[in-house]
């Protein structure tokens, strides 16, 4: 009788062990992807590749905003008629009224918010054209024009600093380089325009027609 009993117990033990082992093998170490990311990135050792070589030919400046430090394209060098005071030698009100001065910037029409909110002087200082001006009259460098935009577009500014808004330059590896506001948005007419898609798949259209016929 004892012999029978011990065989019984032994076989149960064996079964239990097999179940235990086989379950263990199929069990993933992580419950979810988020757990895995958290666990595997602590500590994070960095990568052996860097994006410097993709940024070599670009004229970039480093900025620090809050806890984020990254590169943005240099702006002044891209403005065709900088420095502005090459033409704007006198304060704007004097230039506008003089007969002999050339007409300029005739193609710029502000289509940004409404006229109650914005006109030229919201961002430009007629007496000092080489810099931009904040709402409180402080100077803002053309290279840091994002500081001007961020006065109203605070949500976009937060997203841009973190990396959710705005296009990245070159690669995903550090150092990070991001486009600044004016690289994608024309400050005088900031919204994106309607246009035709870059691609049209005629094959898909044909296949759909054939499917309908059958």
């Amino acid at each position, binding site marked *: 009788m004892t012999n029978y009993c011990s065989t019984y117990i032994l076989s149960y033990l064996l079964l239990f062990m097999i179940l235990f082992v086989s379950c263990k093998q199929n069990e993933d170490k992580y419950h979810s992807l988020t757990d895995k990311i958290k666990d595997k990135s602590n500590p994070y050792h960095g990568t052996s590749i860097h994006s410097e070589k993709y940024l070599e030919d670009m004229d970039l400046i480093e900025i620090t905003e809050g806890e984020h430090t990254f590169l943005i394209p240099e702006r002044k060098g891209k403005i065709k008629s900088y420095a502005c005071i090459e033409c704007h030698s006198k304060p704007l009100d004097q230039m506008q009224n003089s007969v002999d001065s050339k007409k300029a910037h005739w193609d710029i029409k502000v289509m940004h918010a409404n006229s109650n909110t914005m006109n030229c002087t919201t961002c430009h200082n007629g007496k000092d054209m080489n810099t931009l001006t904040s709402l409180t009259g402080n100077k803002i460098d053309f290279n840091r024009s994002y500081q001007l935009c961020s006065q109203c577009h605070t949500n976009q500014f937060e997203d841009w600093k973190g990396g959710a808004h705005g296009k990245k330059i070159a690669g995903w590896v550090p150092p990070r380089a991001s486009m600044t506001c004016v690289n994608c948005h024309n400050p005088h007419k900031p919204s*994106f325009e309607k246009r035709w898609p870059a691609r049209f798949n005629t094959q898909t259209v044909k296949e759909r027609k054939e499917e309908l016929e059958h």
Partner: protein
Amino acid sequence: MSDNKKWFSLNLNSAKKESSGSCSCGKTSGGCGSHAKSQISDEEFDNAVDTAIGDERKRDGFDQVFDVQMDRRTAFRKLTASLLIGAGAVSTSCSITTGEESKEKAQIDWEEQFKGNYKLMTNDEKKGTVDRLVRSYQLRTGKTISMTSENAEEDVLFGYAFNISKCQGYMDCVSACVEENNQDRNSQMQYIRIHEMKDGEGFKFDEADDNYYHEVPAEGHFYMGTQCFHCDNPPCVEVCPVQATWREDDGLVVIDYDWCVGCRYCMAACPYDGRRFNWSTPEVPEKEINKNQHYLGNRMRKKGVMEKCTFCVQRSRKGQNPACVDACPTGARIFGNLLDPNSTIRWVLENKKVFRLKEDLGTEPKFWYFMD
């Protein structure tokens, strides 16, 4: 064609037979090339097979192919044919009269034919096959391509985020993807789909238009893109019968185009319509070929194999963003290393309200959507 019928026809019990005298090429008179004089007619063949194997004719599949009974004449004919092919191959590679180049070609083809699964290769073997493919391309076209076999970087797990409020449906990403990844221009293969959906109706993929052609963004619509999501628990990998697709250590789900048998199980298993099949031989004009290639990425494919988005492995493993991210004019696409706590993708995941498609399936896609 009568001696091939056993393998091709699967409707076993249908008694419908082609009338003797016509052949599969449709001609009723004259030869179509496959009808040799010595061949027996359909009826004679059927009778002979019936007497020989009887009920066993109704078997199908594996048994039928490997356990086939044939008469001595067919067996000899098949043996002779395969011997001739073998002898031909040997004579090409060993003959003194053929040129060095064709010998080298034959050698490369031989080694390529019998190489193993890329997943199991050592680094030297990977380099070997890449070198052979580059040399083979050079011998055949006279052009030099650069192909790499970089492995996954340590401490890297690729992730992707897509901003639905930013996408305007311009399809610049689709265009860039086709050019970057040497996709077939004939069948207009595309890895990315941009779905145009009606405002206020949520995600209705069956009603969405993914091939619109009008000015965008269209009034009352929003846009969202899908492609391979590089699931962390990919169902496509589970079903592959030959292990031609797998998940790399940096999270990319890749395909060995030379190991794929084209069964399309993975295509059926993917809940996201992420995989594409080459129904015809992919054709790319020589001057449009992207010569910067990766074995697992944009190298030239063959007819009858699967392909899909690889997060541009040839770019991402060098530190660059995939072509779609680079091309997007709205900044709706964000790519990066999920394991880097300072990466922008991590900031998006931690600070925006993100979601994934069909999360309840447990596939764990590494492709998140978010809104402003």
